[in-house]
């Protein structure tokens, strides 16, 4: 009974933090207009967040600059690569589905890695299952595993503080 109570208390706490975060988001984006409507939306969004078991995210600020620089460079390279392939018929497409063995067991790192892989050069993840990330690559010859591995290391440092 007491563990159920503790569980409920933790959920309420997480919900309150999400609600505050979403409400702040609303205030910034809507320039503080219609705060009541914003609060209702924030409460709904917080309820969904708790419902899908979205726990709190902690970021190691010391790992943030390296991550941002890495990410912006790769984003630029990825968009440039796809632009070249789109307008230049001579640059070949050699798409395939490949599996990337995940090194991390951290759920938040896996989730973010799966989402952000789509912004790296030539890679796009659909999901992860049994320790493997399913990735669509534009060119099989390209060293896609190295790019994903570097993103994984950055995210591990950023979200867990562990040096991979």
């Amino acid at each position, binding site marked *: 009974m007491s563990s159920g109570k503790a569980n409920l208390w933790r959920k309420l706490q997480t919900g309150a933090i999400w609600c505050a975060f979403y409400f702040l988001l609303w205030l910034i984006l809507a320039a503080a207009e219609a705060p009541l409507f914003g609060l209702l939306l924030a409460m709904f969004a917080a309820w969904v967040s708790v419902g899908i078991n979205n726990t709190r995210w902690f970021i190691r600020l010391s790992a943030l600059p390296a991550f941002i620089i890495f990410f912006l460079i790769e984003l630029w390279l990825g968009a440039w690569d796809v*632009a070249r392939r789109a307008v230049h018929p001579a640059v070949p497409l050699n798409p395939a589905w490949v599996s990337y063995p995940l090194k991390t067991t951290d759920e938040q790192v896996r989730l973010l890695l799966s989402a952000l892989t789509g912004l790296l*050069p030539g890679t*796009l993840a659909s999901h992860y299952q049994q320790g493997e990330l399913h990735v669509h690559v534009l060119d099989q010859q390209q060293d896609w595993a190295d790019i994903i591995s570097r993103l994984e290391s950055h995210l591990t440092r950023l979200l867990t503080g562990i040096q991979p």
Partner: protein
Amino acid sequence: MIEALSTLLLWLGGAFFVVGTVGLLRFPDVYSRLHALTKADTLGLGLVILGLSLRADRLATVLLMLFIWLLVMASSATACQLLARYQLQSDKDSSDGSE
């Protein structure tokens, strides 16, 4: 000088949007098309926002635009992944059905 740099960034951002759309039309399958749209549009919007930031007269406006970019990036990365997952599942279903 700043005005010229801003104009250059706005044009460059626009060009990436156009190229993303060219990729959408030219690439052979759904997954490759998703690559084109997600990457080119995310960078395109980033460059447009950078270009507009150079013209902004308040820091708050710049931060707001950066914030919008982050949110758009988060939603496009997520949507792209969900679309790829959905298409992969439908491909599997249709190949299972045809066997």
